[in-house]
Structure formats: C-alpha cells, structure tokens
C-alpha cells in the first residue's frame, strides 16, 4: 500500500506510459532506419524495454503489492538476452559471409 506522501512524490502513471511510448517510437524508428544491423538490434532492445516500462508501471499503479508485472518484465529481459545472443550470432555469421553488416546490401531474397 502507498501512503499519500509517497504518492505525491511519485510521478503519475501517464508520465511512465509517455516514456514507454517514446521508447517504443524511438525503437521502431531505429529498427526501420538504421543501416547497421547492430543498430537495428539495439533499437529492438529499446522496443523490449519500452514494453518492460509499461509492464512495471501498470503493475505498480494498477495492482500494487503483486509481483506479476515485474515477474513478466524479468522474463522479457531474459528473452531479450536470448534474442540478442541469436541476433548477434546471426550478424557475426552474416559478416563473415558477406563482409558487411549493412542491411541495404543484404537483399539476396529479393524477388
């Protein structure tokens, strides 16, 4: 349970969601616009973290004292770690093969 003093010091839920939305937008923008595959991976991490902020913020404000939102965020972090491993491994392999990590040069699936 939160007391009033703490509550008055805490920013509102809306500001968290705003941060989350900004992160998501930055992530999507980065994923779509970065030429370097590593940049794309980093942008995808931003999207994950945007989701995590939302999960944690909703847990804190809507269901305080319960662990589910935070637990889910932990899961997402673990998932993001696994994703980063696979993604980096792919980028490494692509680099070995094509001597480039620029996404615009990698279009062998072009029809």
């Amino acid at each position, binding site marked *: 349970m939160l007391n009033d003093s703490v509550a008055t010091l805490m920013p509102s839920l809306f500001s968290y969601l705003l941060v989350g939305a900004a992160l998501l937008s930055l992530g*999507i923008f980065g*994923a*779509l*616009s970065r030429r370097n595959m590593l940049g*794309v991976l980093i942008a995808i991490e931003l999207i994950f973290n945007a989701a995590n902020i939302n999960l944690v913020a909703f847990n804190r404000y809507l269901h305080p004292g319960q662990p589910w939102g935070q637990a889910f965020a932990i899961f997402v972090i673990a998932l993001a770690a696994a994703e980063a491993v696979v993604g980096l491994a792919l980028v490494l392999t692509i680099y070995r093969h094509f001597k480039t990590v620029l*996404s*615009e040069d*990698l*279009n*062998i*699936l*072009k*029809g």
Partner: protein
Amino acid sequence: MIDHAHLIPLLPLAASVLIILFGRWLPLEGAWLAILVALAGLVQSSVILVGVFTRPEVLLPNLGPAGRFFEMSWDWFSIGNHRMELGIMIDGMSAMMLVVVTLVSFLVQVYSLGYQRGKPRFGRYYAYLSFFTASMLILVVANNLLQFFIGWELMGLSSYLLIGFEFERPAAAQASRKAFITTRVGDLGFYLGLLLIFTSLGTANFGILGAESVKTIGPGLATAIALLLFCGTVGKSAQLPLHVWLPDAMEGPTPVSALIHAATMVAAGVYLLGRFSFIFALSPVAQTVVAWTGGLTALGAALSALTATDIKKVLAYSTISQLGYMVLAMGVGDPQAGMFHLTTHAFFKALLFLGAGSVIHAVHTNEMPAMGGLGKKMPVTFITMFCAWLAIIGFPYVSSGFYSKEAILAAVYEKHEIALLAIAGFTALLTTFYMTRLMILTFIGTPRDAERFRHAHESGLSMTLPLSVLAALSLFAGFLLHYIWPFANLVPRAAHAVAETVGHGPEGGGHAVVLALSLAALGLGLLGAYTVYILRNPDPEKMAARFPGLHALLTVRHFDRFYLKLADWLCFKPAAFLQAFDYAVIDQFLVDGVGAVGRLLSRIQSWIDDNIVDGILVNGFGGMATRIGAGLRALQSGAVQNYLLGAALGAFALLLWSVGVFG
C-alpha cells in the same frame, strides 16, 4: 496309235519345257530332244494318217456332217449347264495337218542343226520351235473352239518369240511386236466369234456344232459368226488388210520363216476356215467376203513380190499370195481344194525357205542383186529349189502345186466367179514370173558379187537332207494325194455333202477351160521372165526411173502407211490431246488449284494460330502472369527493414482498429 493322239501335242510341249529348264546341261543344249520328239510325233501322225486312209471306219467311228471323226475328251470345267472340255478330235483334215506340221517341224529342226550352229541361245531356239509346234498341234487336234483358241494364241506368243529371236537387232524386235499386235487385231474378232457361238449355241464342241448348226443357226447369225471367225483368219493368215506383219516377220531366223509359212501360224487361219466350213456354207455373204478377200490378197501380194529384191521378202509375199489362193478356195465353198493346197504349199514353201536359208547361209546376204550364178556352187540347193519352183508355178503333172492349184481354179470356175477366176489366173501368171525371176537372179547367170560368190559353198548334210526330202514331196505329194490316196477321201468337197467325194482336177469334166487358163498363165509368165531377165536383163534402177508411178505402187507399203496414219489418228493424236488435257486441266487447274486453295487456307489458319491462339491466348496468359509477377516482385525487396515496416504498419493498423478508429 490314235488312242494316244493326245501325246502328239503334249510331247513337244514337255520337250520345250525340259529344254528351257535343263537344256544347258544337255548335249547340244537339248536340241536332240526336240528333234527326237518331233520324229516321234511324225511317226505317230503318219501311222494315224495311213490308218485314216486304209480303214477309216475303224479309226474314225463317229460320223459327222464334215465326215468321219475320232473323238475323246476330258472335262475341264463347267459353268452352269455349259461344259468345257479338253479333247482330241481327229478327222481326215486334222490327220493330214498333223503329218504336215510334224513333218515340216521335224525337217526344220534337223535343218536348224546346221543353220543355227554356233548362234547364241541355241537351246532356247529349239525350245521355242518345240513350243511353236506344240501350239499348232494343240490347235489341230482340238475338238472344241476354246482349245482351238488356246492353241491359236499360244502360237501368237511363240511366233512373237521366234520372229524376235535375234532381238539384239531393233528391226527383229520391232517385227515381232508388229506381228503380235497385228494378229491380235484379228484375234479380237475371232474371240468375239467364239463368244457368239458359245452364247447362241451353248457349246463349243466341233462335232455337236457341226451336227446342230444347220438346224439352229439362222442366216444372219451364221453371217455374223462366219465374219467374226474370218477376222481371225485375216490376222493369222495374213490376208488383206492385216497382211502387213508377214513381210516383216522375215526378221526371224530363216528356218523359223519356213515353219511359220509352211506348217504353223499362217496355216492355222486356213485350217480354221476348213474347220468351220459348215458355218460358212450357211452364209453366202460371208463366203463372198472370204472369196474376194482371198482373191485380192493373192493378186496384191503377187504384185508386191515382183519388185522385192530381198529373197525372203519375195517368198513372204508369195506366201501371202498362196494363202490368198487357199482362202479363195474356202470362199467358194471348197475346203477340200483349200486344204489340199495348204498341204502341198507347206512342202514347197518350206523347201523354198530352207533353200533360201541355205543360199543366205552361203553368201551372207538376203539381197538377190548380190547373188547370181550360185547354181554351180550349190547344186543340191539349186536342184531342190528347182523342184519347189516347179511346184509353186504349178508345172503340169510333175509337180504337187499343179494339182492343188488346179483344184482351186476348178472350184472357182464351178462357182461361175469369172472375175475371181481371172484374178486367180493372172496371179498364177505373176507367180510364175516372180518365182522364175527369183531363180534366175539367184542361181543363173554370172555372179554379180565376185567376193561373195568365191566364198559361197554348198551347205552341210543336216541342211541338204531336209531339202531333198521336201523336194521329193514337192514333186510327188500332189500326184500321191490325187491318185493313190485321194485327198477327197480326207476332206469332203463341201460341207454337208458327205457323199460327194468325186475327184476333180485337171481331167475333171468341163475343166479344159481351167487347164487352158493355167497353162496359158504358166507359159506367159515363163516367157515374160525369160524375156526380161535372160534376154534383156535390164538395170532395175533404170526400170524404176522409167515407170516411177508403177514402181511406187508396187514397192511403197501403202497399208503400213495407212496403219501409221490410223495409229496416228486413233492413238497418238488422242494421246497428245489427253496429255494436253492432263497437263492443262488436271495438273494445272485441278491439282495446282487445290494446292493454291490449300495454301490460302493454310495461310489463314497460320494467321489465326499466330495472332489469336499464340498472341492472345498463350502469350496473353503468360504475359499476364509475368506482369502480375513483376508487380508482386517489387514487394519482395529482400530488404529486411521493408518487411519490418510492413509489420509495424500492420501492428499500427491493428492498434487503430482495436481502439475503434475504423468503426
């Protein structure tokens, strides 16, 4: 002997087949086989003939309208109620013919041993001779018209083979074709006559025909049948107007000419008239036609013989002329005289040809202007030819030709055919003239070609022996058949007059006129020939120049020209027209037209194929797929961020949808 008469034609037939098949392995290429068979046939025929003379009632049990006959037959096939048979019929006429045919054939074959020695295809020559003889014998012994026709046509074939025997020479090949085709024209009529007899009377058997004909044949039918059958004679016996093949037939080897002219081929036509004299007797019209054809043939051929310089050509024309005599006799209704002359003529004409062959063998030319004086070099040939000469000019009493020719003249005289009698008498004069000319030019006088004369020599025994036998027959056969074994007993004087067998001839009543006529003809002919060729001995070219019209009339072969024209009109011109028609209408119009239409249709079809099927359907669908694919391919950029953008936009759209922006 007579019970095995079927062997007479069958043995030579077998011999010819054997020689063709196995001749090359036999000594003399099988010639001895043919000669032996001919001798056997001669012996058998002679025995039969003697039997027919001495005891006819035993040998010839059947009595028909044309005299006694012997018959045996085998069924061949039957159509409906009509029975066709193969058979043997022997009466006086055929018994005589058998002896004539086998005798002449035998002598010719013996003669050919010398004449054809060393020539190519020796064995084949004998096979053909045997086949020729067999064909004639099949015809002679036939007891029905169909078998007669078979022999008749086989003879046409064998004459073709023999006339064209030296086919390396184009003239011989051409002559054989000419003989074959010309006689075919007559055979067509003969065949129609055969069919007419068979359809109208229902039988082809001579005996039945002879017995039935009087009762059932009307004058119109008799005339039709007689004239059709006569067509066959005209072709085969070389009567006007189908005589043209016979002079050309001289291209065959000389012994073959002897065989064709004496015993086979041309004799068959006369024999046919004799066989069917009972039908001719029913039709005065046909008889008149036959008599005049014979008379004119005799005269025309004798005229042609006057100027011929080829010794064989003279003899060929003389054969046509003598055949004319025989046909004339048949025409005045006296088969006896006709067959009598056929018999004697067979002997002396065979002799003349074989003698001419002997001369040709010695001097290697046919041209009389290159001969002369050969009598000294070739005594046997000369003396035997002299006997034949006596016979053909009808020298009184000592020659066979005298009796038979008198019989014919007498028959004409009895018919009161004065114009024909005059023609026959004049022909006798001409015959004497040209035959005397032949003898003088060949054997008498000085040699005109010294080189040839020096090489000339008498022929060998195989050639002179047949000549001697025939010479004896030429002299005595007439006497023999007139007094000792009267020919009248063999062949009835006229059809349907069995009882009338009174001999007639030189001393028959009222025939002093005939005798005087023939003696006058003989004397004038001899005198003329003696004057012209011994006393004056004119240059032939000067003579020809002095009478160009007459010379052209006698030498130019008007009938040949006419037939060429006829062929031109009947065959070549229509053929040319049809060819033009074929080219212009069939080829150019129809065939090419169909082709052009086909090409046009193909072009339309091709346009449809190219533009509609290919252009619209096939390429259209392909193109559509290509264009759609090209559009879709633009989406497949391969750039991962494009896909990501799509996913993002999709997610955004879902978001909008979930918050209810779209409704």
